[in-house]
């Protein structure tokens, strides 16, 4: 094996695996905090993708890094609002079980 650098595909596979783990956690978690953590994992997978493409394909303009900065900003805002929603839900229901948040179910 004679490679000059790490192939782009390696980064892409890592980010694909991270994204799928995030989706699995999102679908299967009972705890609402863990659902938020899974969302953060998925956002990180997307960030790895953006950074890999920006380094391998667009290494002069690096627009992918700018996009990553914006995604990090949105993720921070999302985490703050999500955890605030979680706290007010917990005040009303006294549980963090996702199965008991069925107010919108018909």
């Amino acid at each position, binding site marked *: *094996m004679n*490679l000059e*650098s790490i192939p*782009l*595909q*390696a980064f*892409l*596979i890592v980010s*694909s*695996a*991270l*994204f*799928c*783990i995030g*989706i*699995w956690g999102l*679908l*299967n978690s009972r*705890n609402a*905090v*863990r659902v*938020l*953590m899974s969302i*953060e*994992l998925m956002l*990180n997978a997307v960030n*790895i993708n953006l*950074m890999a493409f920006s*380094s391998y*394909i667009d*290494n*002069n*303009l*690096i*627009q992918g*890094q*700018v996009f*990553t*900065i*914006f995604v*990090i*900003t*949105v*993720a*921070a*805002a999302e*985490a*703050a609002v999500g*955890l*605030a*929603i*979680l706290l*007010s839900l*917990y*005040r*009303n*229901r*006294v549980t963090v*079980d996702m199965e*008991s948040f069925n107010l919108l179910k018909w």
Partner: protein
Amino acid sequence: MSIAITTQFICFTVLSLVVIIGALGVVLLESIVYSAFLLGGVFMSVAGLYLLLNASFVAAAQVLVYVGAVNVLIIFAIMLVNKKEDLKPIDDIKSRRVISTSICLTLLSLLIRVDLTNVWSLSSPQNSIGEESTIRIGEHLFSDYLLPFEVASVLLLMAMIGAIVLARRDVMSKDISTGLPVDQELIEKSSEPLLTNKN
């Protein structure tokens, strides 16, 4: 392979193993506190991957924002809602697990197939701008990405106000509509849950 490339490969392998195993631990571990700390480890390893990609500024931002802010926020939320409760069993949990796992594995295989079979148009010489990347990001943020940059500040302000409004406890001494004194006890301890299960 020169020694620099070998070092890069070793670093990449270790970091990606930590990312994958840590993420599996985040979603699979029983204790939510362990999950939160493993999530911090995953964030740090992702920052290491960014360093391998010649992006020191984004790696620093990742450590500051994710490990310093988001992870601490999650740990505080766990501390505030950490009550031992016995979850009600779901009767069709087996089929749910099977369906969701098969969906995730199918998606993973599709993504990996796309990753490996597509011919990426890599830029021919790997002349990364390296240390210049911070300067280049600054130029982008204040020229062609100026509007998203300003909108992001508005978004952060909205998120801050929204989080405060959603999470704060009522501190008025009298109820506005009825005039009765407001219960200042911890709501979780004193009052009945407002939205009770109908079934």
